[in-house]
């Protein structure tokens, strides 16, 4: 129940295309859903995050879509660029009252944007 399932495992997109990464969860205590971006040799870095009280959040070319009833959320990268090539992790964390501090990560999606 603590799992976050992420797909696809890898993704190749042409420059200028749309990259879409999907995640699903079971634990209804999850209350905050960040996406992390990881470049080779670096630690994960927060990209964008959403709470379940909104269905969409957009920051520049990055958009999170959230479907609370389906317990699914996705990351859309518009106008994908070669510099977006990285591994993307979705994650989830319970609300603060649940007494848990841990981020649960998905298995990651390796995105390659080709010129």
């Amino acid at each position: 129940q603590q799992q976050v399932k992420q797909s696809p495992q890898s993704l190749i997109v042409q420059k200028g295309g749309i990259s879409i990464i999907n995640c699903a969860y079971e634990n209804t205590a999850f209350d905050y859903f960040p996406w992390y971006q990881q470049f080779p040799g670096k630690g994960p870095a927060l990209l964008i995050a959403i709470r379940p009280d909104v269905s969409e959040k957009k920051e520049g070319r990055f958009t999170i879509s959230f479907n609370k009833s389906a317990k699914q959320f996705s990351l859309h990268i518009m106008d994908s660029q070669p510099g977006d090539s990285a591994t993307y992790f979705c994650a989830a964390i319970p609300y603060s009252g649940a007494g848990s501090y841990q981020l649960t990560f998905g298995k990651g999606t390796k995105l390659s944007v080709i010129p």
Partner: protein
Amino acid sequence: EPEVTQTPSHQVTQMGQEVILRCVPISNHLYFYWYRQILGQKVEFLVSFYNNEISEKSEIFDDQFSVERPDGSNFTLKIRSTKLEDSAMYFCASSEGPAANTGELFFGEGSRLTVL
């Protein structure tokens, strides 16, 4: 820009040896974490630390592991007797407030541990 720094970047050790991984969190952060990532797999939570004590730990964080904040700046992870399966990238992270409030953890670049 403030960052989390980790040392060493890579450590090779023999099975059964003790290892200490060091981290300097961002200075005004109060919550500290260790995560690990086995090659090609997802990032897994090990432990969180607040107010000089462990606030939460995962099943991975057994008696072989310990954490310490020996002074005002360092945060260490000790593995008492390393096993082959401890080979992984270990990430230290810190946050200003509880992760549940913001979800924003700042990660270091990691310490790669190779156990032979």
